[in-house]
């Protein structure tokens, strides 16, 4: 993005910053347990859980590893795993 002081800011542009770098634990989804209630998608503060080919997956570019999804999943289909970086 060209930084020009004083100019207005483009919409949706924080996408340029990959907050996934903040993460210590990563959510791992067990798709077999998932009942597609979409609660994880609704509650995720980053708005980074999406359905891809019918499966709920986190976008690890942005996931901060807060574990809200894991905590709220009614089927305990999400586990938080220490990430090897």
């Amino acid at each position, binding site marked *: 993005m060209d930084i020009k002081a004083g100019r207005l800011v483009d919409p949706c542009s924080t996408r340029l910053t990959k907050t996934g770098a903040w993460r210590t634990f990563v959510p791992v989804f067990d798709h077999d347990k998932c009942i597609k209630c979409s609660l994880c998608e609704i509650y995720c503060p980053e*708005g980074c859980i999406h359905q891809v080919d019918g499966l709920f997956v986190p976008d690890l570019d942005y996931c901060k590893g807060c574990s809200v999804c894991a905590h709220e999943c009614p089927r305990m289909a999400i586990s938080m795993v220490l990430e090897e970086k």
Partner: protein
Amino acid sequence: MENSLLAPGHRACAGCAMPTTIRLVLDAAGPNTIVVSPTGCLEVTTTPFPESSWCVPWIHSLFENASAVASGVEVMLKRRKQDTNVVIIGGDGSTFDIGMGCNSGMFERGHKILYVCYDNEAYMNTGVQRSGSTPFCAQTTTTPPGSKSKGNPRPKKDMPAIALAHKVPYVATASVAYPVDLRRKVKAALQVDGPSYIQVNAPCITGWTFDAGTMIELSRLAVETGLWPLAEWVNGELAGVKKIRRPKPVTDYLEIQGRYKHLFKKNDCGDQLAKIQAIADANKAKYKLVD
């Protein structure tokens, strides 16, 4: 939410309720919406120049003038006969305290503006100082417990009642843990031809101190204990409340938050816990929360 109107990459703390709250509000309001926000965590974390998380037109001016700025936006929309929602999304500090004059003016002039307060019960952006919304006994950096203090000495200001006193035609409380309810209330508010006010319980991990994963659970507990009644007023009349099926003791909610830790350390705070339970019980009675 692939087509969410709040982009990821914002700088809110991991596990903050505010971005989820914004997304739920924008989901219900849709893209034909202009958002006005005051200074606070929301503004600082979603609009670090030259980036912005907002996918709808958005403006920030000052900490205490969002209602006046939104009024200027709204009169221009009316002048152009343009049917676009005007939504203010602001923190409790700007809503309950410093912005009160502008809020009162906006309510009284009857602008068609939805005011959503994401209520994290303190001035978080400046490091967790007390606001008029901070609940009884909560620890903040300006209401620290000590030998002569048990945390915030005053109960939370009743902001919905202040909105109702201005004859705001639609007033509601909501919680980030009840997304269906919140979205419905936003839609209802946007139908009103005049101002509306929704106050959303939105836990702050930094200020309340809890395990990040429990953010939603915490907001749910605020409701289930009776400390945060989910209510809705239409034209000044209480039009609906969310019943609590299995009421929980307030300690379930308090003991998992660092801001109430002092109440559990010393046994001389038993009184305080009883007083907080009494606040919850009074809410349950007032709103008939339990059948």
